[in-house]
């Protein structure tokens, strides 16, 4: 009785029909399983409230020439420095071939806004925050000095001396008007 094959003249047709049925069911089941997993995985992505803070607006009208402020963007400090003519000149005079991470100052600032330097304030060595207060050491190159392992950055935020491998990162930003900077 068990699993007895009946002799069936339409065996061949039956077989193809069965294959189609089995394959379709298995394929749909696989699709269902895949679709069911997605919400679980997706839930691990940043939530809406986190994304809502992924851009930060900063009022820059109060920043004097030569002054730098620290803002918070996506959980990390961002340095906004309004550079002096002198600092810009120094930054642009450097022969970039001599730099550990060659990059032109012009590529690190926005056109016609070259007095503004916006940097992610996280040392590219091991993630410490270089000093950005007026009282902090600016390092040997007039930019920033990371207190952890002594990485010196210049007035364009480029690494000049010390263990850090890269220049300080530039976040995506734009000037929405004369007074407001939008980071992110």
């Amino acid at each position, binding site marked *: *009785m*068990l*699993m007895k094959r009946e002799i069936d003249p339409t065996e061949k047709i039956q077989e193809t029909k069965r294959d189609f049925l089995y394959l379709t069911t298995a394929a749909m*089941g696989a699709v269902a399983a895949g679709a069911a997993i997605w*919400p*679980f995985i*997706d*839930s*691990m*992505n940043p*939530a*809406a*409230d*986190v994304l809502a803070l992924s851009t930060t607006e900063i009022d820059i009208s109060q920043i004097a020439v030569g002054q730098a402020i620290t803002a918070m963007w996506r959980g990390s400090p961002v340095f906004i420095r309004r550079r002096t003519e002198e600092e810009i000149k120094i930054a642009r005079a450097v022969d970039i071939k001599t730099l550990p991470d060659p990059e032109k100052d012009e590529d690190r600032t926005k056109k016609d806004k070259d007095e503004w330097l916006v940097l992610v304030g996280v040392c590219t060595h091991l993630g410490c925050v270089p000093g950005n207060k007026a009282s902090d050491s600016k390092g040997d190159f007039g930019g920033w000095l990371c207190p952890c392992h002594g990485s010196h950055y210049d007035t364009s935020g480029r690494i000049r001396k010390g263990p850090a491998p890269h220049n300080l990162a530039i976040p995506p930003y734009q000037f929405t008007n004369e007074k407001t900077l939008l980071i992110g």
Partner: protein
Amino acid sequence: MSGIQTLEPETKWGRFQNWVDDRLPIFTFMRHSLEEYPTPKNLSYWWNFGSLAGVCLVVMMLSGIFLAMYYTPHSQHAFESVDRIMRDVNHGWLLRYIHMNGASMFFIVVYLHMFRGLYYGSYKSPRELLWILGVVILLLMMATAFMGYVLPWGQMSFWGATVITKLVASFFPGLENGILQLLWGDFSVSNATLNRFFSLHYLLPFVIVGVVILHLVALHKHGSNNPLGIDLKNPKEKIPFHPYYTIKDFFGLGVFFLVFLSIVFYAPEFFNEPDNYIPANPMVTPPHIVPEWYFLPFYAIVRSIPWRWGGIFLMFASILILFVLPWLDRSKVRSGTFRPIFKISFWIFLANCCVLGYMGALPTDGHTFGLPNILISQIATFYYFFHFLGVLPLLAKYEKTLPLPTSLGTPALGAKNV
């Protein structure tokens, strides 16, 4: 080890299987217990609920693990963190509604699984330990569900926790305060309580998994019972688990998810109490505290006895009595199909459990059908125990059972398949 010969060593995959199997017989194990495992061929759809319960456990653990990535077990933040899951976390609402309603579905499935076992005598020799392990799983589920309900830290969470912990503590007269402080880690249900409940709520499901494995080991020793309740001696009366029961279980799973997901998507608050959307407030008790529906029969038992300790004793006893059920019902006939009077008593017992559940949801001082609720609860409580302590032992002794068929192919006189 004997499996090695039957594997196909010609292919790369076959050689790999042999290599692994020789060191860790996982493929042999899988083939024996998932593929070849001989299963009675006459199982009805009532036998689907075991695997469904397993799926429920997996769904609950998965959704729970992902929810725990956002949930904050702190009395100041718990309520908000749950609300944030609902509003801001990607698909958070879906995960939470799955978890919330999954608990109810899990209990529905497990209760049906148990009532199936009760009807077909699946607890009888040689499956007593299989049944007992099942009751252990039920107890662990109840503890897990209770602590899970506390986590959203709404009014029902808070007052449910207060009432149930007090209930447990008053089982130990004279030591109540000490035990309460031990359970609470404070002088009332508080942040410490919430923290430990979260810890245990996360732990216990893994303990359940362990007991489920034992449950399965015990099941596979003698194989499934079947609707006729007879031992199947002829190997032709059994069929391999795969593909016959894998596809049957998958079909059952599809139907189950249709029900489950229609609640998740279209009536997600069906099992929920509105009061649990009010943040916990230790100064205000909601006018009518009800536990989750799956606790209602037990809640009715505890409230039916005016003497507090007695009520609590009976509530615990109502579950613990299931442990000795195999020795209360000593009838040699397993299946209710061949026990005409037992069959009736089974349906009365089921109805009685529903009455208890309904009573658990009503205020004790009300009336139903002109009768005081408390009296109905008391009668139902009495009958609950009478079924186990009176009806079953008496039936085992005096009931005239129908003649049993000797095999699946030869229905005995008067027997019909269910």
